[in-house]
């Protein structure tokens, strides 16, 4: 079995290789070779494929690919590779269940299966999108925590501390991270869920030093939260991510393998993106010793993942992972559009249905590409959770038909999607309730989904 210390040693002993050679002479040719050999082809007519053999082929191809390509360490310019038997043994003996949260909000996470009758883990909130003020962070998190089926929080990222803009890697980042955590915990307590795990720790901290500094228990975080350790596109790590891992694993914390293969980038088209996403799950177990994979395949032209080809990559890789791997996978939706638009609810429904029917858990969600400050509200993840429960147990062929219908309503608008309205324009900031207009819109789209045959559970 490959240990974390084996990995740390291997980054200094693996084959030396320039990053460019890794990208162009190691990664790219092997990716093309395995896709061709396994005849994995994108099918735009079926954004949610219904073929177990294809899902298993993708997983086998990902194993073949990962064993050959390995993981690239940017700081040492070396390729970390292990013997295929060691990788297989490590995957076979890896933990299969992980515990998050405290007290009444303590819960065990396990892998789902395609068409599983168990609902997905609802990891809800802002997907790390930026919020303009400490007050808005507090109100938003309280709203997220009030969603009935929330299992864990994805907190917004703070951009300022007392009006001063946070600069990554600077002392302000440490202040910002500590402040954001304190506010999030305060909001969770106000909502009556003090033990709810925060599973995107720490969204306000981009550097390892800020994460480690702000992880001190007196600031409010715990090992039973979830800790982001982001890989780099594609199949790369650096000292920062491995150092975070060394600390977090020694602390007994839940490490998140955060992976975002870029469709149109090194991963190529939808087939390559699906394969690389599955390979990242292997990397998450073998290299990072993670408790969950948080995946958001992203379209290079749209900065979102609700287009037809990204949904296909999400669905197929989700199925391949869910059917074959022990490391639970979450899909994170990034929407092109913003709050209080029909499109934002159509996009939400499409990616959630694709992910849930394919056997993944959900992190909902990055609204308005998670790039527009304050352009998100508790309504969108709330809707995602309702759709997720409604989609639990549905067959993939039905999910496919639903997703195709939803795509027809928005896919031609992705490039110039409406940014919608800001949080304070959608909510009453005193009562914390959504505006009547947004509630009406929400009800209208929910009714449309019911008319399409989706049965809401609550």
């Amino acid at each position: 079995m490959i240990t974390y210390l084996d990995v740390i040693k291997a980054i200094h002993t693996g084959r030396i290789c320039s990053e460019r050679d890794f990208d162009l002479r190691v990664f790219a040719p092997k990716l093309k070779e395995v896709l061709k050999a396994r005849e994995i082809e994108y099918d735009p007519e079926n954004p949610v494929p219904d073929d177990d053999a294809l899902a298993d082929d993708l997983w086998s191809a990902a194993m073949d690919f990962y064993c050959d390509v390995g993981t690239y360490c940017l700081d040492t310019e070396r390729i970390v590779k292990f013997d295929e038997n060691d990788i297989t043994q490590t995957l076979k003996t890896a933990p299969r269940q992980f515990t998050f949260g405290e007290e009444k909000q303590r819960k065990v996470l396990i892998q789902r299966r395609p068409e599983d009758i168990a609902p997905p883990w609802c990891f809800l909130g802002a997907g790390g999108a930026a919020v303009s003020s400490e007050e808005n962070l507090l109100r938003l998190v309280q709203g997220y925590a009030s969603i009935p089926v929330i299992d864990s929080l994805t907190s917004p990222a703070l951009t300022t501390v007392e009006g001063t803009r946070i600069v990554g890697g600077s002392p302000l980042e440490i202040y910002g991270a500590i402040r954001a955590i304190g506010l999030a915990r305060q909001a969770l307590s106000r909502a009556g869920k003090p033990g709810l795990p925060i599973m995107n720790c720490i969204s306000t901290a981009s550097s390892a030093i800020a994460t480690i500094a702000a992880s001190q228990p007196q600031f409010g975080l715990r090992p039973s939260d979830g800790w982001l350790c982001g890989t780099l596109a594609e199949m790369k790590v650096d000292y920062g991510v491995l150092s975070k891992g060394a600390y977090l694993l020694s602390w007994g914390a839940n490490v998140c393998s955060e992976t975002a293969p870029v469709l149109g980038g090194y991963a190529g088209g939808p087939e390559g993106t699906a394969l690389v996403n599955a390979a990242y799950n292997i990397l998450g177990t073998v290299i990072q010793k993670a408790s969950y994979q948080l995946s958001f395949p992203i379209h290079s032209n749209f900065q979102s993942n609700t287009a037809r080809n990204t949904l296909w990559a999400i669905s197929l890789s989700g199925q391949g992972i869910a059917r074959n791997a022990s490391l639970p996978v979450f899909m994170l939706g990034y929407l092109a559009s913003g709050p209080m638009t029909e499109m934002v609810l159509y996009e939400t429904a499409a990616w959630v249905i694709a992910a849930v029917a394919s056997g993944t858990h959900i992190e909902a969600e990055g609204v308005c590409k998670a790039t527009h400050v304050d352009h998100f509200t508790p309504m969108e993840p709330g809707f995602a959770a309702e759709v997720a429960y409604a989609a639990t147990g549905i067959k993939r062929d039905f999910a496919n038909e639903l997703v195709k219908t939803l795509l027809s309503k928005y896919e031609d608008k992705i490039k110039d999607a409406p940014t919608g309205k800001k949080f304070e324009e959608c909510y009453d900031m005193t009562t914390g309730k959504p505006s009547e207009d947004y509630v009406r819109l929400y009800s209208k789209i929910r009714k449309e989904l019911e008319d399409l045959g989706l049965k809401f559970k609550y």
Partner: protein
Amino acid sequence: MPQKQDILDRLRSSIVTGDEEAAKLTTREAIDNSVDPVEIVEEALIPGIAEVGGKFERMEAYLTDMMMAANAMKAGMNIALAKIPREKIRRRGTVVLGTVKGDIHEIGKNILSALLTAAGVDVHDVGCDVPASVFAEKAEEVGAIIIGASALMTTTLPGQKDIADYLNSTGRRDKYSLLVGGGPTTEQWAKEIGADGYAETATDGVKLALRQLEEKGSGPFER
């Protein structure tokens, strides 16, 4: 002796397939067979990379295809340009590209770099996690017209402002167009920091950069 058109076709094909060695050999073969180096550039190297650029826009080719084609084109170009009198060489201008201090994400910047190279722009990529002064000094060194700065995280956006501040404080702000991009960047942010432009995607970034180069009088690629 092989026909001139046959050599140029094979050279263009080597660019499309990203075969750097074949591009070098075929460029040398063309020169050995007295093909005008300017013709080598304009009839084979540029059309080859343009073909891959078109495929990339239609999502029929991807980043590694673009990078390999750009490498092959550069290899051929280095050989051909050495045979062209300096006064006859005109590029679309020079761009310095990089990801700002504190940020190690560079895939978007790499896509833009490959697409700009395909468009005939001389690109100097300073890498990622780069301080403002390095952008500015590199631009000075290579005679750049544009500085392109990418940031992928909300907390690293200030690195783009640092470049504007550095250029202002050293009295060089008007010398360059400062273009910004990357996930959390918005038009509003670009205006706030006094950047000259913002692009949401790499494809939009190419259009913006070419427009700025035209405005700055660099002119189209021509002999």
